[in-house]
Protein backbone atom coordinates (compact mmCIF):
# COMPACT_ATOMS: atom_id res chain seq x y z
CA UNK A 1 0.00 0.00 0.00
CA UNK A 2 2.84 2.31 0.95
CA UNK A 3 4.65 1.75 -2.37
CA UNK A 4 1.41 2.27 -4.25
CA UNK A 5 0.92 5.54 -2.38
CA UNK A 6 4.37 6.83 -3.31
CA UNK A 7 3.84 5.81 -6.93
CA UNK A 8 0.55 7.68 -7.04
CA UNK A 9 2.18 10.68 -5.40
CA UNK A 10 4.77 10.79 -8.19
CA UNK A 11 2.17 10.32 -10.90
CA UNK A 12 0.05 13.10 -9.39
CA UNK A 13 3.10 15.34 -9.05
CA UNK A 14 4.03 14.80 -12.70
CA UNK A 15 0.45 15.50 -13.78
CA UNK A 16 0.39 18.63 -11.67
CA UNK A 17 3.74 19.76 -13.08
CA UNK A 18 2.57 19.10 -16.63
CA UNK A 19 -0.63 21.05 -15.96
CA UNK A 20 1.40 23.98 -14.61
CA UNK A 21 3.68 23.84 -17.61
CA UNK A 22 0.69 23.93 -19.96
CA UNK A 23 -0.75 26.91 -18.13
CA UNK A 24 2.63 28.63 -18.14
CA UNK A 25 3.09 28.29 -21.90
CA UNK A 26 -0.43 28.10 -23.33
CA UNK A 27 -2.84 30.14 -21.23
CA UNK A 28 -4.19 32.67 -23.74
CA UNK A 29 -3.10 36.27 -23.24
CA UNK A 30 -3.37 39.61 -25.02
CA UNK A 31 -1.01 41.08 -27.59
CA UNK A 32 -0.60 44.61 -26.23
CA UNK A 33 2.84 44.28 -24.62
CA UNK A 34 4.15 42.21 -27.54
CA UNK A 35 2.85 44.93 -29.85
CA UNK A 36 5.06 47.50 -28.09
CA UNK A 37 8.01 45.15 -28.42
CA UNK A 38 7.13 44.64 -32.10
CA UNK A 39 7.05 48.38 -32.79
CA UNK A 40 10.46 48.97 -31.17
CA UNK A 41 12.07 45.88 -32.70
CA UNK A 42 10.73 46.63 -36.18
CA UNK A 43 11.97 50.22 -36.00
CA UNK A 44 15.39 49.01 -34.82
CA UNK A 45 15.60 46.43 -37.63
CA UNK A 46 14.85 49.19 -40.14
CA UNK A 47 17.56 51.37 -38.60
CA UNK A 48 20.12 48.55 -38.57
CA UNK A 49 19.62 47.94 -42.29
CA UNK A 50 19.67 51.66 -43.03
CA UNK A 51 23.12 51.80 -41.43
CA UNK A 52 24.33 48.82 -43.49
CA UNK A 53 23.07 50.66 -46.58
CA UNK A 54 25.13 53.75 -45.68
CA UNK A 55 28.35 51.83 -46.47
CA UNK A 56 26.96 49.11 -48.68
CA UNK A 57 30.20 48.65 -50.63
CA UNK A 58 32.23 48.16 -47.46
CA UNK A 59 29.95 45.43 -46.18
CA UNK A 60 28.75 43.63 -49.30
CA UNK A 61 29.81 42.81 -52.81
CA UNK A 62 33.20 42.26 -54.41
CA UNK A 63 34.96 45.05 -52.50
CA UNK A 64 33.64 44.22 -49.04
CA UNK A 65 35.88 44.27 -45.99
CA UNK A 66 35.06 40.60 -45.46
CA UNK A 67 35.39 38.81 -48.81
CA UNK A 68 34.17 35.37 -49.86
CA UNK A 69 37.38 33.60 -48.91
CA UNK A 70 37.46 35.07 -45.41
CA UNK A 71 33.79 34.35 -44.85
CA UNK A 72 34.18 30.76 -46.06
CA UNK A 73 37.09 30.20 -43.68
CA UNK A 74 35.24 31.86 -40.83
CA UNK A 75 32.21 29.63 -41.31
CA UNK A 76 34.15 26.49 -42.25
CA UNK A 77 33.17 24.52 -39.15
CA UNK A 78 29.78 26.03 -38.40
CA UNK A 79 26.31 25.93 -39.89
CA UNK A 80 25.84 29.51 -41.01
CA UNK A 81 24.27 29.25 -44.40
CA UNK A 82 23.28 32.49 -46.08
CA UNK A 83 22.73 33.38 -49.70
CA UNK A 84 24.82 36.50 -49.00
CA UNK A 85 27.97 34.38 -48.95
CA UNK A 86 30.52 36.95 -50.05
CA UNK A 87 29.97 36.34 -53.78
CA UNK A 88 26.79 38.40 -53.86
CA UNK A 89 26.57 41.29 -56.26
CA UNK A 90 26.08 44.76 -54.92
CA UNK A 91 22.63 45.12 -56.42
CA UNK A 92 21.46 41.87 -54.78
CA UNK A 93 22.81 43.07 -51.44
CA UNK A 94 21.15 46.44 -51.97
CA UNK A 95 17.83 44.76 -52.79
CA UNK A 96 18.16 42.52 -49.76
CA UNK A 97 18.88 45.42 -47.43
CA UNK A 98 16.07 47.57 -48.83
CA UNK A 99 13.65 44.65 -48.43
CA UNK A 100 14.86 44.10 -44.87
CA UNK A 101 14.46 47.79 -44.11
CA UNK A 102 10.94 47.70 -45.57
CA UNK A 103 10.06 44.57 -43.61
CA UNK A 104 11.29 46.26 -40.42
CA UNK A 105 9.16 49.33 -41.09
CA UNK A 106 6.10 47.20 -41.91
CA UNK A 107 6.71 45.25 -38.72
CA UNK A 108 6.84 48.45 -36.68
CA UNK A 109 3.69 49.78 -38.30
CA UNK A 110 1.96 46.44 -37.89
CA UNK A 111 1.25 45.90 -41.56
CA UNK A 112 0.72 42.29 -42.72
CA UNK A 113 2.50 41.23 -39.56
CA UNK A 114 1.96 37.51 -40.08
CA UNK A 115 4.38 37.82 -42.99
CA UNK A 116 6.47 40.87 -42.33
CA UNK A 117 7.65 39.88 -38.84
CA UNK A 118 9.10 36.50 -39.93
CA UNK A 119 10.44 38.19 -43.09
CA UNK A 120 12.22 40.88 -41.05
CA UNK A 121 13.72 38.19 -38.81
CA UNK A 122 14.85 36.03 -41.74
CA UNK A 123 16.36 38.87 -43.76
CA UNK A 124 18.20 40.19 -40.70
CA UNK A 125 19.45 36.68 -39.94
CA UNK A 126 20.85 36.36 -43.48
CA UNK A 127 22.68 39.65 -43.02
CA UNK A 128 23.95 38.52 -39.61
CA UNK A 129 25.54 35.38 -41.08
CA UNK A 130 27.16 37.51 -43.81
CA UNK A 131 28.53 40.14 -41.44
CA UNK A 132 29.31 38.14 -38.29
CA UNK A 133 32.51 40.05 -37.37
CA UNK A 134 30.63 43.36 -37.28
CA UNK A 135 27.93 42.24 -34.86
CA UNK A 136 27.46 42.75 -31.13
CA UNK A 137 24.83 42.45 -28.41
CA UNK A 138 22.33 44.59 -30.30
CA UNK A 139 22.06 42.04 -33.10
CA UNK A 140 21.65 39.19 -30.63
CA UNK A 141 18.75 40.91 -28.87
CA UNK A 142 17.02 42.15 -32.01
CA UNK A 143 17.16 38.73 -33.66
CA UNK A 144 15.99 37.04 -30.47
CA UNK A 145 12.97 39.33 -30.19
CA UNK A 146 12.08 39.11 -33.88
CA UNK A 147 12.33 35.30 -33.75
CA UNK A 148 9.86 35.02 -30.87
CA UNK A 149 7.58 37.73 -32.22
CA UNK A 150 7.33 35.65 -35.39
CA UNK A 151 5.42 32.96 -33.52
CA UNK A 152 3.18 35.43 -31.68
CA UNK A 153 0.08 37.38 -32.69
CA UNK A 154 1.79 40.69 -32.01
CA UNK A 155 -0.04 42.30 -34.93
CA UNK A 156 -3.38 41.95 -33.15
CA UNK A 157 -2.88 45.20 -31.26
CA UNK A 158 -1.51 48.66 -32.03
CA UNK A 159 -1.20 47.81 -35.70
CA UNK A 160 -2.39 48.80 -39.15
CA UNK A 161 -3.56 45.20 -39.49
CA UNK A 162 -6.05 45.83 -36.73
CA UNK A 163 -6.94 49.27 -38.03
CA UNK A 164 -7.70 47.97 -41.52
CA UNK A 165 -9.42 44.83 -40.27
CA UNK A 166 -6.76 42.47 -41.66
CA UNK A 167 -6.81 40.76 -38.28
CA UNK A 168 -9.75 40.46 -35.93
CA UNK A 169 -9.48 42.78 -32.93
CA UNK A 170 -7.29 41.95 -29.95
CA UNK A 171 -8.15 38.47 -28.76
CA UNK A 172 -6.53 36.39 -26.11
CA UNK A 173 -4.29 33.85 -27.80
CA UNK A 174 -1.94 31.11 -26.65
CA UNK A 175 0.67 32.16 -29.20
CA UNK A 176 1.17 35.43 -27.30
CA UNK A 177 1.83 33.57 -24.08
CA UNK A 178 4.13 31.08 -25.81
CA UNK A 179 6.22 33.86 -27.36
CA UNK A 180 6.28 35.93 -24.18
CA UNK A 181 7.46 32.96 -22.11
CA UNK A 182 10.25 32.21 -24.57
CA UNK A 183 11.41 35.84 -24.50
CA UNK A 184 11.32 35.81 -20.70
CA UNK A 185 13.26 32.56 -20.39
CA UNK A 186 15.81 33.57 -23.01
CA UNK A 187 16.33 36.88 -21.22
CA UNK A 188 16.92 35.02 -17.94
CA UNK A 189 19.58 32.89 -19.68
CA UNK A 190 21.29 36.02 -21.03
CA UNK A 191 21.43 37.74 -17.65
CA UNK A 192 22.39 34.61 -15.74
CA UNK A 193 25.34 33.76 -17.96
CA UNK A 194 26.24 37.44 -18.31
CA UNK A 195 26.45 37.57 -14.52
CA UNK A 196 28.41 34.32 -14.27
CA UNK A 197 30.89 35.62 -16.85
CA UNK A 198 31.45 38.76 -14.82
CA UNK A 199 31.84 36.70 -11.64
CA UNK A 200 34.95 35.16 -13.21
CA UNK A 201 36.70 38.54 -13.42
CA UNK A 202 38.52 40.19 -10.55
CA UNK A 203 37.41 43.71 -11.49
CA UNK A 204 33.83 42.77 -10.75
CA UNK A 205 34.89 41.66 -7.27
CA UNK A 206 37.33 44.41 -6.26
CA UNK A 207 34.81 47.01 -7.38
CA UNK A 208 36.86 48.64 -10.17
CA UNK A 209 34.89 47.35 -13.18
CA UNK A 210 32.74 50.50 -13.29
CA UNK A 211 35.84 52.67 -13.45
CA UNK A 212 37.42 50.62 -16.23
CA UNK A 213 34.17 50.69 -18.20
CA UNK A 214 34.15 54.49 -17.80
CA UNK A 215 37.81 54.68 -18.86
CA UNK A 216 37.26 52.78 -22.10
CA UNK A 217 37.56 55.60 -24.63
CA UNK A 218 36.21 53.61 -27.56
CA UNK A 219 32.93 52.94 -25.74
CA UNK A 220 32.55 56.32 -24.12
CA UNK A 221 29.79 58.64 -25.33
CA UNK A 222 29.52 60.84 -22.23
CA UNK A 223 32.44 61.40 -19.92
CA UNK A 224 31.71 59.69 -16.63
CA UNK A 225 35.26 59.34 -15.39
CA UNK A 226 34.13 61.50 -12.44
CA UNK A 227 33.10 58.15 -10.96
CA UNK A 228 36.80 57.61 -10.23
CA UNK A 229 36.54 60.26 -7.52
CA UNK A 230 33.95 58.18 -5.70
CA UNK A 231 35.52 54.76 -5.29
CA UNK A 232 32.81 53.51 -2.93
CA UNK A 233 30.02 54.51 -5.30
CA UNK A 234 31.84 52.83 -8.20
CA UNK A 235 32.27 49.69 -6.14
CA UNK A 236 28.61 49.61 -5.06
CA UNK A 237 27.50 50.02 -8.69
CA UNK A 238 29.92 47.28 -9.78
CA UNK A 239 28.73 44.81 -7.17
CA UNK A 240 25.10 45.83 -7.65
CA UNK A 241 25.35 45.07 -11.37
CA UNK A 242 27.04 41.72 -10.73
CA UNK A 243 24.52 40.48 -8.16
CA UNK A 244 21.55 41.89 -10.05
CA UNK A 245 22.54 40.04 -13.23
CA UNK A 246 23.03 36.73 -11.48
CA UNK A 247 19.83 37.08 -9.42
CA UNK A 248 17.68 38.34 -12.29
CA UNK A 249 16.60 34.85 -13.40
CA UNK A 250 15.27 34.07 -9.93
CA UNK A 251 13.93 37.41 -8.72
CA UNK A 252 12.16 38.62 -11.83
CA UNK A 253 9.38 36.04 -11.44
CA UNK A 254 7.93 36.76 -7.96
CA UNK A 255 5.53 39.70 -7.99
CA UNK A 256 7.17 41.12 -4.88
CA UNK A 257 10.65 41.50 -6.38
CA UNK A 258 9.82 41.95 -10.08
CA UNK A 259 9.30 45.75 -9.99
CA UNK A 260 12.65 46.22 -8.26
CA UNK A 261 14.51 43.98 -10.67
CA UNK A 262 12.94 45.76 -13.65
CA UNK A 263 13.69 49.16 -12.14
CA UNK A 264 17.37 48.22 -11.81
CA UNK A 265 17.28 46.94 -15.40
CA UNK A 266 16.02 50.34 -16.47
CA UNK A 267 18.89 52.19 -14.78
CA UNK A 268 21.57 49.73 -15.95
CA UNK A 269 20.51 49.79 -19.59
CA UNK A 270 19.74 53.51 -19.63
CA UNK A 271 23.27 54.01 -18.27
CA UNK A 272 24.76 51.82 -21.01
CA UNK A 273 22.75 53.70 -23.62
CA UNK A 274 23.71 57.17 -22.42
CA UNK A 275 27.27 56.79 -21.23
CA UNK A 276 28.71 53.85 -23.12
CA UNK A 277 27.82 54.74 -26.67
CA UNK A 278 25.45 51.85 -27.16
CA UNK A 279 22.12 53.61 -27.24
CA UNK A 280 20.71 51.03 -29.62
CA UNK A 281 21.74 48.07 -27.47
CA UNK A 282 20.63 49.71 -24.22
CA UNK A 283 17.28 50.59 -25.74
CA UNK A 284 16.65 47.07 -27.05
CA UNK A 285 17.52 45.51 -23.70
CA UNK A 286 14.94 47.79 -22.10
CA UNK A 287 12.43 46.76 -24.74
CA UNK A 288 13.15 43.07 -24.08
CA UNK A 289 12.46 43.64 -20.39
CA UNK A 290 8.95 44.77 -21.31
CA UNK A 291 8.18 41.05 -21.67
CA UNK A 292 7.91 40.97 -17.88
CA UNK A 293 5.47 43.86 -17.73
CA UNK A 294 1.88 42.81 -17.18
CA UNK A 295 -0.95 45.13 -17.98
CA UNK A 296 -4.19 44.96 -16.03
CA UNK A 297 -6.49 43.18 -18.44
CA UNK A 298 -10.19 42.60 -17.79
CA UNK A 299 -10.13 39.62 -20.12
CA UNK A 300 -7.67 37.49 -18.19
CA UNK A 301 -5.13 37.29 -15.43
CA UNK A 302 -1.73 36.16 -16.67
CA UNK A 303 0.28 37.80 -13.95
CA UNK A 304 1.11 34.53 -12.24
Amino acid at each position, binding site marked *: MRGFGIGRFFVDSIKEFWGSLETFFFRPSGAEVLAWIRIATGAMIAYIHLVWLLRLESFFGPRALLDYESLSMLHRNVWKWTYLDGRESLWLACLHEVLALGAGLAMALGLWTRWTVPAAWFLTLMTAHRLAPFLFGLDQIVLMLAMYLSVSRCGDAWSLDQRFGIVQGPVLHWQNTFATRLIQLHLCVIYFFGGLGKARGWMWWDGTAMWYAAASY*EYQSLDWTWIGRYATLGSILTHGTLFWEIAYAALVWPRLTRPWILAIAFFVHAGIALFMGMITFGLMMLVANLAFVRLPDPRCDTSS
Partner: protein
Amino acid sequence: MPPRIEKSEPAARVEHESRGQCKAAYRKWLLGFAIFHLLAVVAEPLFFYSRSDVQAGPEFLALRRGLGPYVDWMYLDHGYFFFAPNPGPSHLVGIRDQSVVFPDRKEQWPRLLYHRYFMLSEFYNNSFAPTALDPQDMTDKLFVARWEEDRRFYQTLQRSISKSIQSQWNTRGDDRIESLPELVRLERPLPGPLEVLSGAKRLGDSRDLIVLPEGPESPSTQPGPVLGIPIQGVPLP
Protein backbone atom coordinates in the same frame (compact mmCIF):
# COMPACT_ATOMS: atom_id res chain seq x y z
CA MET B 1 -6.90 52.14 -27.68
CA PRO B 2 -7.87 48.62 -28.76
CA PRO B 3 -11.48 47.70 -28.11
CA ARG B 4 -11.96 45.61 -25.03
CA ILE B 5 -14.29 42.70 -24.61
CA GLU B 6 -16.93 43.63 -22.09
CA LYS B 7 -17.26 41.38 -19.07
CA SER B 8 -21.01 41.54 -19.49
CA GLU B 9 -20.75 39.47 -22.66
CA PRO B 10 -19.81 36.04 -21.37
CA ALA B 11 -20.76 34.30 -24.59
CA ALA B 12 -18.52 36.53 -26.66
CA ARG B 13 -15.71 36.09 -24.17
CA VAL B 14 -15.94 32.30 -24.22
CA GLU B 15 -15.94 32.39 -28.00
CA HIS B 16 -12.89 34.65 -28.06
CA GLU B 17 -11.01 32.55 -25.54
CA SER B 18 -11.80 29.26 -27.21
CA ARG B 19 -10.48 30.70 -30.47
CA GLY B 20 -7.21 31.57 -28.76
CA GLN B 21 -6.72 28.17 -27.10
CA CYS B 22 -4.05 25.77 -28.25
CA LYS B 23 -5.37 22.39 -29.29
CA ALA B 24 -4.51 19.74 -26.70
CA ALA B 25 -2.98 17.50 -29.38
CA TYR B 26 -0.47 20.19 -30.34
CA ARG B 27 0.59 21.10 -26.83
CA LYS B 28 2.98 18.24 -26.15
CA TRP B 29 4.70 18.78 -29.49
CA LEU B 30 5.02 22.47 -28.87
CA LEU B 31 6.33 21.88 -25.36
CA GLY B 32 8.83 19.39 -26.74
CA PHE B 33 9.98 21.97 -29.25
CA ALA B 34 10.19 24.67 -26.55
CA ILE B 35 12.42 22.41 -24.44
CA PHE B 36 14.59 21.60 -27.46
CA HIS B 37 14.89 25.28 -28.31
CA LEU B 38 15.73 26.31 -24.73
CA LEU B 39 18.41 23.61 -24.63
CA ALA B 40 19.83 25.17 -27.77
CA VAL B 41 19.77 28.58 -26.08
CA VAL B 42 21.85 27.33 -23.13
CA ALA B 43 24.07 24.97 -25.17
CA GLU B 44 26.62 27.60 -26.23
CA PRO B 45 27.06 29.39 -22.87
CA LEU B 46 27.35 26.05 -21.04
CA PHE B 47 29.96 24.84 -23.50
CA PHE B 48 31.73 28.20 -23.51
CA TYR B 49 31.93 28.42 -19.72
CA SER B 50 32.98 24.81 -19.23
CA ARG B 51 36.07 25.12 -21.44
CA SER B 52 39.54 25.06 -19.92
CA ASP B 53 43.07 24.19 -21.05
CA VAL B 54 42.35 20.60 -20.04
CA GLN B 55 38.93 19.95 -21.60
CA ALA B 56 35.41 21.20 -22.18
CA GLY B 57 32.71 19.66 -19.99
CA PRO B 58 31.95 16.44 -21.95
CA GLU B 59 28.18 16.64 -21.46
CA PHE B 60 28.10 20.29 -22.56
CA LEU B 61 30.36 19.53 -25.49
CA ALA B 62 28.00 16.73 -26.55
CA LEU B 63 24.99 19.03 -26.18
CA ARG B 64 26.63 21.78 -28.21
CA ARG B 65 27.74 19.38 -30.93
CA GLY B 66 24.38 17.62 -31.05
CA LEU B 67 22.46 20.85 -31.45
CA GLY B 68 25.20 22.48 -33.56
CA PRO B 69 23.31 23.12 -36.79
CA TYR B 70 20.29 24.57 -35.03
CA VAL B 71 22.35 26.68 -32.61
CA ASP B 72 24.55 28.06 -35.39
CA TRP B 73 21.93 28.78 -37.99
CA MET B 74 19.43 30.29 -35.56
CA TYR B 75 22.17 32.60 -34.30
CA LEU B 76 22.08 31.23 -30.77
CA ASP B 77 25.84 30.71 -30.53
CA HIS B 78 26.56 33.34 -27.89
CA GLY B 79 28.31 33.06 -24.55
CA TYR B 80 26.77 36.36 -23.34
CA PHE B 81 30.17 37.56 -22.16
CA PHE B 82 29.26 41.26 -21.97
CA PHE B 83 32.18 43.16 -20.38
CA ALA B 84 33.33 39.87 -18.91
CA PRO B 85 35.35 38.51 -17.31
CA ASN B 86 36.77 42.07 -17.02
CA PRO B 87 36.43 45.27 -19.03
CA GLY B 88 39.53 45.11 -21.21
CA PRO B 89 41.66 47.34 -23.42
CA SER B 90 40.25 48.40 -26.79
CA HIS B 91 41.79 47.28 -30.04
CA LEU B 92 42.01 49.37 -33.16
CA VAL B 93 43.40 48.90 -36.63
CA GLY B 94 45.74 51.39 -38.24
CA ILE B 95 47.41 51.52 -41.64
CA ARG B 96 51.17 51.76 -41.80
CA ASP B 97 52.46 55.16 -43.01
CA GLN B 98 48.91 56.52 -43.20
CA SER B 99 47.12 58.54 -40.56
CA VAL B 100 44.12 56.27 -40.72
CA VAL B 101 42.70 54.29 -37.86
CA PHE B 102 39.40 52.56 -37.40
CA PRO B 103 37.09 52.80 -35.59
CA ASP B 104 36.92 56.57 -35.95
CA ARG B 105 34.00 58.53 -34.54
CA LYS B 106 34.37 61.36 -37.03
CA GLU B 107 34.65 59.12 -40.08
CA GLN B 108 32.02 56.58 -39.07
CA TRP B 109 28.72 58.15 -38.17
CA PRO B 110 26.07 57.42 -36.87
CA ARG B 111 27.26 55.72 -33.72
CA LEU B 112 26.00 52.33 -34.83
CA LEU B 113 28.22 52.51 -37.92
CA TYR B 114 31.19 53.39 -35.71
CA HIS B 115 30.37 50.42 -33.50
CA ARG B 116 30.35 48.09 -36.54
CA TYR B 117 33.93 49.14 -37.35
CA PHE B 118 34.87 48.84 -33.70
CA MET B 119 33.61 45.26 -33.65
CA LEU B 120 35.60 44.51 -36.82
CA SER B 121 38.80 45.87 -35.27
CA GLU B 122 38.21 43.76 -32.14
CA PHE B 123 37.50 40.71 -34.31
CA TYR B 124 40.67 41.33 -36.33
CA ASN B 125 42.71 41.44 -33.14
CA ASN B 126 41.02 38.36 -31.71
CA SER B 127 41.84 36.50 -34.93
CA PHE B 128 45.52 37.31 -34.67
CA ALA B 129 47.99 34.45 -35.05
CA PRO B 130 51.72 35.35 -34.87
CA THR B 131 54.13 34.98 -37.79
CA ALA B 132 56.10 32.34 -35.89
CA LEU B 133 55.78 30.21 -32.79
CA ASP B 134 58.14 29.94 -29.86
CA PRO B 135 60.47 26.93 -30.34
CA GLN B 136 59.03 25.07 -27.32
CA ASP B 137 55.52 25.29 -28.85
CA MET B 138 56.74 23.68 -32.09
CA THR B 139 57.02 20.28 -30.39
CA ASP B 140 53.24 20.00 -29.97
CA LYS B 141 51.90 18.86 -33.35
CA LEU B 142 48.28 19.64 -32.54
CA PHE B 143 49.22 23.12 -31.39
CA VAL B 144 51.21 23.71 -34.56
CA ALA B 145 48.36 22.48 -36.76
CA ARG B 146 45.94 24.79 -34.97
CA TRP B 147 48.35 27.71 -35.30
CA GLU B 148 48.77 27.08 -39.04
CA GLU B 149 45.02 27.12 -39.52
CA ASP B 150 44.61 30.25 -37.42
CA ARG B 151 47.48 31.93 -39.24
CA ARG B 152 45.92 31.16 -42.64
CA PHE B 153 42.64 32.71 -41.54
CA TYR B 154 44.34 35.77 -40.06
CA GLN B 155 46.29 36.39 -43.26
CA THR B 156 43.18 35.91 -45.39
CA LEU B 157 41.25 38.37 -43.25
CA GLN B 158 44.16 40.83 -43.35
CA ARG B 159 44.30 40.64 -47.15
CA SER B 160 40.54 41.02 -47.43
CA ILE B 161 40.43 44.18 -45.31
CA SER B 162 43.49 45.65 -47.05
CA LYS B 163 42.08 44.99 -50.52
CA SER B 164 38.77 46.56 -49.59
CA ILE B 165 40.41 49.71 -48.23
CA GLN B 166 42.69 50.02 -51.24
CA SER B 167 39.86 49.50 -53.65
CA GLN B 168 37.71 52.14 -51.99
CA TRP B 169 40.53 54.64 -51.89
CA ASN B 170 41.17 54.08 -55.57
CA THR B 171 37.49 54.57 -56.36
CA ARG B 172 37.58 57.91 -54.58
CA GLY B 173 40.52 58.89 -56.78
CA ASP B 174 42.78 58.85 -53.77
CA ASP B 175 46.09 57.39 -54.94
CA ARG B 176 47.89 57.58 -51.63
CA ILE B 177 48.93 53.94 -51.92
CA GLU B 178 49.88 51.78 -54.85
CA SER B 179 50.42 48.51 -53.04
CA LEU B 180 48.13 46.86 -50.52
CA PRO B 181 47.94 48.90 -47.33
CA GLU B 182 49.62 47.22 -44.40
CA LEU B 183 47.39 46.86 -41.36
CA VAL B 184 48.75 47.56 -37.90
CA ARG B 185 47.12 46.27 -34.73
CA LEU B 186 46.82 48.84 -31.99
CA GLU B 187 45.83 48.56 -28.36
CA ARG B 188 44.62 51.23 -26.03
CA PRO B 189 45.30 50.14 -22.42
CA LEU B 190 42.82 51.15 -19.74
CA PRO B 191 44.27 53.83 -17.46
CA GLY B 192 43.84 53.80 -13.68
CA PRO B 193 41.73 56.46 -11.97
CA LEU B 194 44.71 58.30 -10.46
CA GLU B 195 46.38 58.78 -13.86
CA VAL B 196 43.25 60.31 -15.37
CA LEU B 197 41.97 62.33 -12.42
CA SER B 198 45.40 63.86 -11.77
CA GLY B 199 45.52 65.00 -15.38
CA ALA B 200 48.57 62.86 -16.21
CA LYS B 201 46.60 60.99 -18.86
CA ARG B 202 43.76 61.96 -21.13
CA LEU B 203 41.36 59.41 -22.55
CA GLY B 204 41.70 59.19 -26.31
CA ASP B 205 45.30 60.38 -26.38
CA SER B 206 47.00 58.73 -29.37
CA ARG B 207 50.32 58.60 -27.47
CA ASP B 208 48.85 55.90 -25.28
CA LEU B 209 48.27 53.54 -28.19
CA ILE B 210 50.49 50.48 -28.28
CA VAL B 211 51.49 48.95 -31.60
CA LEU B 212 51.04 45.21 -31.30
CA PRO B 213 53.67 43.06 -33.04
CA GLU B 214 52.94 40.51 -35.75
CA GLY B 215 55.55 38.14 -34.39
CA PRO B 216 56.55 36.92 -30.95
CA GLU B 217 58.50 40.13 -30.16
CA SER B 218 57.43 42.73 -27.53
CA PRO B 219 54.83 45.41 -28.29
CA SER B 220 56.01 48.85 -29.35
CA THR B 221 54.75 51.96 -27.60
CA GLN B 222 55.63 54.26 -30.48
CA PRO B 223 52.60 54.41 -32.76
CA GLY B 224 53.56 57.73 -34.31
CA PRO B 225 56.42 56.67 -36.61
CA VAL B 226 54.60 53.48 -37.59
CA LEU B 227 51.38 55.20 -38.60
CA GLY B 228 52.99 58.25 -40.09
CA ILE B 229 51.32 60.68 -37.73
CA PRO B 230 52.86 63.28 -35.45
CA ILE B 231 52.98 62.11 -31.87
CA GLN B 232 50.81 64.70 -30.25
CA GLY B 233 48.26 64.68 -27.51
CA VAL B 234 45.39 64.51 -29.96
CA PRO B 235 43.15 61.64 -30.99
CA LEU B 236 44.09 59.94 -34.20
CA PRO B 237 42.14 61.23 -37.19
